C-alpha cells in the first residue's frame, strides 16, 4: 500500500463551525479506476476540491506520488500530475475549442515571455508543438471538426467531452472526473464510458470518478468509496457496496431491495 499513487489520510475540512468532511481515508494504486459516490451534499466535490488544492484541508494528509500536496496552490497540484473536470462545466467560453485545450497544455510548453514578445524561433517551435499536441487530443475526442468553434457554441455533450480533453492536455497521472455524465442521455453516457475506458488505457491513467449514475459507477469502477454527511461510510468492490446495509440506508434507499 505504500506504493499507492494517491494516499489520503484522515482528511478533513471545517468551514467555520461546520465539519464538511472528516476522517476520509483513501488510496489509489497506479492504473485503478475508482468511484466516489454519495448522496447530495455528502462532501464529494469538497473532497475533490481538497485534492486539487482549491480548498486547504484543515486536517489530514494527502500524499501524491510520494509528495505531500495538501494545501498546495491548484496550479502546482496540476503540475504535479492531478487534473480535473468540473461538475458545472467551466470551459473558457470565449476561446475556441482548440485554444481551450492549448491553455491546459500551457504547463508543458517551455518558450518564455521574452521569446513570445520578440517572436524568437523558440516561440514558433513551442507554439507549433502545442498546436500539434492539442489537436491530437481533440481528435481522440472527436472534437477536431469543432476546432475553431467557440467553446460556448458547442452542444452540451461535446462541452462535457471538451472538459475531459482539456483536463487530459495537462498531462495528468491522476484524472479526477466530477460527474462527467451529468445531464447526458443513455446513449451519450454509454459512449462516454467507452471513452473513459479508452483514455485510461491509452494514457495509462488513474481515474477517480464522482458520479450519480449508478449504472456507470457500478459498471466500470474497480473499487468504490461511499461518502455520507462528510464521512466515509464504506469502501469496496461494486458487489460489496451493493450489499452493504449502511450504503443502502444512506444512499440507495429502498430501490435496491430487489
Amino acid at each position, binding site marked *: 500500500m505504500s506504493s499507492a499513487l494517491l494516499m489520503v489520510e484522515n482528511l478533513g475540512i471545517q468551514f467555520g463551525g461546520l465539519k464538511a468532511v472528516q476522517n476520509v481515508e483513501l488510496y489509489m494504486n497506479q492504473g485503478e479506476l475508482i468511484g466516489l459516490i454519495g448522496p447530495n451534499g455528502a462532501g464529494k466535490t469538497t473532497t475533490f476540491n481538497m485534492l486539487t488544492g482549491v480548498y486547504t484541508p484543515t486536517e489530514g494528509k494527502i500524499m501524491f506520488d510520494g509528495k505531500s500536496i495538501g494545501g498546495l496552490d491548484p496550479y502546482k497540484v*496540476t503540475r504535479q500530475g492531478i487534473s480535473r473536470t*468540473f461538475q458545472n462545466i*467551466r*470551459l*473558457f467560453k470565449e476561446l475556441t475549442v482548440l485554444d481551450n485545450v492549448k491553455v*491546459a497544455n500551457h*504547463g508543458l510548453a517551455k518558450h518564455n515571455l521574452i521569446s513570445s*514578445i520578440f517572436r524568437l524561433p523558440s*516561440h514558433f517551435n513551442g507554439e507549433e508543438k502545442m498546436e500539434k499536441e492539442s489537436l491530437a487530443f481533440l481528435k481522440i475526442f472527436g472534437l477536431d471538426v469543432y476546432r475553431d468553434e467557440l467553446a460556448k457554441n458547442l452542444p452540451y455533450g461535446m462541452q462535457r467531452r471538451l472538459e475531459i480533453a482539456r483536463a487530459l492536455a*495537462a498531462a495528468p497521472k491522476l484524472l479526477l472526473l466530477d460527474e462527467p455524465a451529468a445531464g447526458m442521455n443513455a446513449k451519450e453516457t454509454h459512449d462516454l464510458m467507452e471513452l473513459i475506458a479508452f483514455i485510461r488505457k491509452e494514457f495509462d491513467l488513474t481515474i477517480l470518478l464522482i458520479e450519480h449514475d449508478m449504472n456507470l459507477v457500478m459498471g466500470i469502477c474497480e473499487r468504490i468509496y461511499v461518502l455520507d454527511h462528510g464521512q466515509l461510510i464504506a469502501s469496496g468492490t461494486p458487489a460489496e457496496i451493493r450489499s452493504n446495509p449502511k450504503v443502502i440506508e444512506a444512499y440507495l434507499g429502498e430501490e435496491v431491495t430487489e
Partner: protein
Amino acid sequence: MKKSKIFWGYAVLALVIYAVVQLLISNGVIQNYYQNMFIAMCINIILAVSLHVIIGVTGQFSIGHAGFLAVGAYISAICTMKFGMPFITAILIGAIVAALAGLLVGIPSLRLKGDYLAIATLGFAEIIRIVFVNTDYVGGAAGLQVTHQSTWTYAFFGVFITILVISNFTNSRHGRACISIREDEIAADAMGINTTYYKVVAFAIGSFFAGVAGAIYAHNYYIIQPTAFGFLKSFDILIFVVLGGLGSLSGSVIAAILLTIVSTYLQEFPETRMIIYSLILILVMLYRPTGLLGSKEITAYFKFGKKGGTRV
C-alpha cells in the same frame, strides 16, 4: 511562413501611414494644431492598448491607469529636465519605472477581484498623484515645465511598438493564459496556470506602456501638472477600452482614434462639448452594448488574418 507575411503586410501599411503623415507635416499641409491632434491620438492609442491588456485580455478591472501615465510623465521629465538625458532614454526609464510602479501596485491588489480591485487601483492612482502634488522637486501643484520634444515620429513608433508587443503577447501561450483567467479563473488555475503571475505580468506590461505614453505626453504639452492625472483621466482611458469592445485590441485603437477626433473638433463648442461627448458615448453604448467591435478584432470582419492592426 504565412503569418510573417501578414505581419510584413501590416508593417508596410504602418510605414506608409507614417510616411504620408510625416510628408504632410514637413510640407506644412498639416498645421501645428492638427499635428498636435495626431500626437494626442497616438498617446491615447498607447494608453487604450496598454489598458486593454489589463482589462480586455486579463479581465482585471483596473481604473487607475492615469497613475502609471503620471509616473511615466514625471520620471521622463525629470530625466530630461533635471539630468539632461536624451529623450529616448527618458522614455525608456519612465516606462521602466512605471512598470515597477505597476508591480508595486499589482502584487498586493491583484488578490482582489472585480469592484474591489477597481477601488484599490483607483486609490493607488490617487496616491501617486498626491505624491507628485506634494513633491517640491517636481514643482508640486504648479507643475513641471518640460521642453517640447515629442514629434510625430516618436509618437507613431511608440504606437507601433506598443501594438506589436501587446499583440505578440496576446497571441502566445502567455496571452492565452491571461484570457483563460478572464474567462474562468478557477478553471485556469486548475489547468495549471499560475494566475497570480500572469495577472501581475499583464499589469506590468500595461503600466510599462502607460509609462511610454506618459513620457510622450509630458514632452508634448510644455508643462505637466498633477491635476491632469486625476481619476477623470483614468476614466477617459477606460472609456476607450469599453467603447472599443472589451477584449478587442483593434476596437480600443479605433475608439481612441474616434474619440480623439471628436473631442478635438468639439473644442470649438466649449459650452456644449461635454454634453455632446457624453451623448455620443450613451448612443454608442445603447446601439453597441458590447462596444464598437465586441470582442472581435477588426480583421475578423475582413477575414484576411488574425492580428489586430489598423493603426492611426
